[in-house]
């Protein structure tokens, strides 16, 4: 397998795709948002229980390619317990990782997605769940899509 492809489908990603964390609806959710990329069939719903401005609980549901589902799963493990401001900062880091391929010094599991930058067509798969999560935090009911995103 090429170095690029094995970078894209790292063990972390395969693991999250096969054994997603925090998957399912959240009955106690007070924020819900949906992401949909109709042209490729990736869908992601994000459920939050906000306690003040802290994400007390988070889950996701959906279907789609390994990149989109693994990204959403990993995201839930990263966002649990964070404030809205911290979540936005983490998204900024994630966005940089997938678009530049460079991970910051404090290595978190998010670095596993650095390989996405070599496959620009798949960046929108990786960021779909995050955009849904941000909409949920902002209490924005519109269904988000990353289809037209070129970054």
């Amino acid at each position, binding site marked *: *397998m090429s170095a690029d492809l094995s970078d894209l489908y790292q063990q972390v990603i*395969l693991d999250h795709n096969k054994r997603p964390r925090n998957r399912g609806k959240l009955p106690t959710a007070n924020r819900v948002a949906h992401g949909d990329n109709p*042209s*490729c*069939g990736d869908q992601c719903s994000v459920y939050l229980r906000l306690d003040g401005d802290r994400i007390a609980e988070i889950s996701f549901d959906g*279907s*789609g*390619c*390994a990149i989109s589902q693994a990204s959403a799963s990993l995201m839930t493990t990263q966002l649990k317990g964070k404030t809205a401001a911290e979540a936005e900062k983490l998204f900024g880091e994630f966005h940089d990782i997938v678009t530049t391929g460079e991970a910051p010094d404090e290595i978190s599991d998010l670095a596993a997605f650095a390989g996405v930058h070599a496959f620009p067509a798949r960046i929108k798969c990786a960021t779909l769940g995050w955009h849904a999560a941000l909409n949920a935090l902002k209490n924005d009911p519109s269904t988000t899509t990353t289809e037209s995103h070129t970054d």
Partner: protein
Amino acid sequence: MPSWPNVRADFPTLHQQVHGKPLVYLDNAATAQKPQVVIDTLSRFYERDNANVHRGLHALSMRATDAYEGARARVAKFINAADPAEIVFTRGTTESINLVAASWGAANLKPGDVILLTEMEHHSNLVPWQLIAQRTGATLRFVPIAGANAEGGLDLSHLDELLSPEVKVFAFAHVSNTLGTINPAAELCARARARGIVTVIDGAQSIGHLPVDVRALGCDFFAFSGHKMAGPTGIGALYGRQKLLDAMPPYQGGGGMIAQVEYLSSRWKPSPERFEAGTPNFADATALAAACDYLDALGRPEIARHDTALAQLACEKLSVLPGIRLLGPHAGHDRSGVVSFAFEGVHAHDVVTFADEDGIALRGGHHCNQPLMKKLGLTSTTRASFYVYNTEEEIDTLVTSMRRILKFFGTA
């Protein structure tokens, strides 16, 4: 002169490497590669004969007009239309169907009328009808598919009821771009015609792959694109019975389709010019005619046999892969060279990305069949589609790649 043993040599695009592997191009339902003669025809037109058609009286204009109208006659012959006047050049299948829906539809549909379609239609033979239904107050009805994997094709058991008196038009795909189903087009047209229902065939996937004889099919309209039949992009045609075309209002207005223009009103030309507003795509029309010649030299019955044999072999070899769900006709049944499938644990996009690494061009997604996918309980499938230059060895390469993917994702 093309010949089967040398077909691959005719297509320059095939002779390249992708990620260090020989290109295995299996995305022909999306678009086909072009033989050198088609590319050369286009180049030579621009090099020698280029001028605007129809209104010029100089040498190049007359040569260009002859080439364009010659292409019209060639296309008419390709589908056995009664007259070149029954061929309207368009941008492709989608524009052709939009033309019928907007022009014939606007003049003939009213509230209470029904537009009959099928559950396997490509968006281009669905959305134009949704638009005209909204504008005219007509409603849509669908012939259902049969079988959990649509292996039964169209369920025709209630066709007589579906073709009720309210139905004014029946539009359907000759060949499904996702399922590979070849619909019994002549029979469907006959049964509709017997009830005075106008028929529209989406021929995008059949035109370059099967012999098409619009008079034998008995359809009123037939729409197709050049680029899927080894011709250039940006050109296709709408075949329409002369009587129907002549009664239809214009689709687009402008130069070329008018007989006379005053400031406040104009008179239209007869068809086909009535439906060709603006400067036509004359250069690509000449290349389309070259594609007709190329395919007829190979022989379209032979092409059909070649595509079907490859599709059936692919189905046979893919069917043993664990967790695979194959769509469309079962082995041993007639199908075109389109094979769609889904793996239980691996999304189509991941399949297509891995296959690309092996040099294989596949397509993953809903293939412009969102309602069909939903009906089949799928969000996406992987599609391999074959054409004249594909080989049995390429099927082996495909299957090996699929095995590798299943192993990697831990589902094999």
